[in-house]
């Protein structure tokens, strides 16, 4: 299969600030690849370099066999992009956006109508396709942008935070849509997100990035497996003291204090809750609540960075 995107020690520096720090990224062809990280981790900068919007300070990258600096035009012709911020013209209709994009990307005239119909059906704008974009809802705008990114049948679709600011219902629809697309057509999707759930549901492989560096990359399943741990979240009085004290218990692999809650990494957590509660009471930490969670990507993230991905992530 091979990789459709490869970067070698790619870096981007802004006025002395290293936004992307020599990243080596390998994205297998026809996969859905997620770049996961908190806001400001360098995700958008990384994706912008791959889309030829930003020039790397050092290092290089190949997209669909083309060098992003020397063959920028060829790269542009092989990719579709959905930007994090909206990139629509209020006073054009949805159909006009698609037509314009098709001709800018040189979709041959004889198949243009066919492509337009295909995409319009996919993004299900219905009658709204012929109304001005300013009358669209957030979800419709997003669907239009995704549809637009697809009309020239790109080899790689870049989605920068595709569901940011959308309601849960629309978010789910867009996820289904992306999965369906990946299964039915010859396309690789590279998406950035700071929603754990999004990465978990959609991606075949993810790279966790923080402060411009890839911390780890693997399939979501393997990453979770690596933790070999359940999380017991416990609320007690004096959590700062408790987090130190609780490490005395030999079955606790690790303990963190996050937002006033103590998170304990354990194996087969369901059997250990009574022991933890008893320990807390004996040591003089009244327990307010206890919760057990099987590992999710958030925990993976916490394990690798020692901090929560964002206040919005679950």
């Amino acid at each position: 299969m091979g990789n459709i995107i490869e970067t070698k020690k790619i870096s981007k520096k802004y006025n002395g600030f290293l936004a992307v720090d020599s990243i080596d990224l390998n994205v297998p062809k026809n996969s859905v690849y997620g770049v996961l990280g908190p806001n400001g981790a360098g995700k958008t900068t990384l994706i912008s370099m791959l889309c030829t919007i930003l020039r790397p300070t050092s290092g290089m990258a190949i997209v669909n066999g083309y060098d992003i600096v020397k063959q920028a035009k060829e790269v542009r012709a092989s990719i579709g992009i959905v930007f994090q911020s909206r990139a629509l013209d209020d006073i054009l209709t949805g159909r006009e956006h698609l037509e314009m994009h098709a001709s800018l990307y040189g979709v041959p005239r004889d198949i243009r109508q066919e492509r337009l119909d295909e995409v319009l059906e996919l993004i299900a704008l219905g009658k709204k396709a012929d109304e001005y974009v300013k009358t669209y809802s957030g979800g419709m705008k997003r669907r239009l942008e995704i549809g637009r990114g697809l009309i020239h049948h790109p080899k790689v679709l870049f989605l920068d935070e595709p569901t940011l600011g959308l309601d849960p219902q629309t978010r789910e629809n867009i996820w289904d849509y992306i999965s369906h697309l990946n299964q039915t057509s010859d396309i690789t999707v590279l998406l950035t997100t700071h929603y754990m759930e999004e990465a978990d549901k959609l991606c075949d492989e993810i790279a966790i990035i923080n402060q411009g560096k890839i911390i780890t990359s693997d399939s979501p399943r393997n990453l979770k497996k690596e933790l070999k741990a359940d999380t017991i979240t416990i609320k007690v009085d004096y959590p700062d003291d408790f987090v130190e004290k609780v490490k005395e218990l030999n079955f606790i692999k690790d303990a963190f204090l996050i937002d006033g809650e103590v998170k304990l990494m354990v194996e087969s957590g369901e059997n250990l809750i009574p022991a933890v509660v008893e320990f807390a009471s004996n040591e003089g930490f009244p327990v307010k609540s206890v919760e057990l969670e099987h590992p999710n990507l958030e925990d993976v993230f916490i394990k690798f960075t020692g901090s929560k991905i964002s206040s919005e992530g679950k």
Partner: protein
Amino acid sequence: MAELEGIYTLWLRETKRFFRYRSRIITSVVTPLLWLIIFGTGLGSAVRFGNMPGGYEAFIYPGIIGQTVLFTSIFSGLSVIMDRQYGFLKEILVAPISRPSIVLGKALGISTAAVIQATILLLLSFIVGVSMTPMVFILCVGIALIMSVGLGGMGLVIAAFTDSMEGFNLIMSFIVLPMFLLSGALFPITGLPSWLQTGVYLNPLTYGVDALRYAILGESALPLGISIIAISVFAVLMVLVSSIIFSKKEQSLM
């Protein structure tokens, strides 16, 4: 071929935008009419000008057409700032077409808007008592077209260096108004104090207004040929400069 199609696509978008913002079309016709009817008649009645056949209104008529072309072209060029703020410029700049084609498509779209407005004013020539023949009409449209390509290109250059619409007032006070006032739209450009004369001759709009005045009233300060050459050189120069700037600054525009 792909480049031509790209130019056409961008031209089409500009033109659609122009026709959809109806209020803009109305203002751009009403403003010059106010100048012609109120300012022209008022000043024309108060002051007696020698050597102005047809009166002051007729004298400023070509100047006001020049003003309309100036305002429309520069402000359409500045719409790039809005495109940038709304992210739409990114969508255009990441397309696989060359930067000069983007600039040319945009500049032609701007010209279309400016020429349409000039045409409306030319059709209203009876208001100032100027007779319009098909030949004069065609010549004026041609001049307006060349002027608008240059001024639109200039608008694009300014837009490339302006981050937000906050800079709009600065551009208005330091570029657009001086250009209008120094163009000889409102007064004859002969026999001026030398400092003013210099400013007038450095202003590309002067040559456009002078050419229009020759076409419409049959009199001008400079030979028609010189004026046409001046505005053509300006047009080519501005398209070149904005193409270079868009290619060089590409990264920071997105």
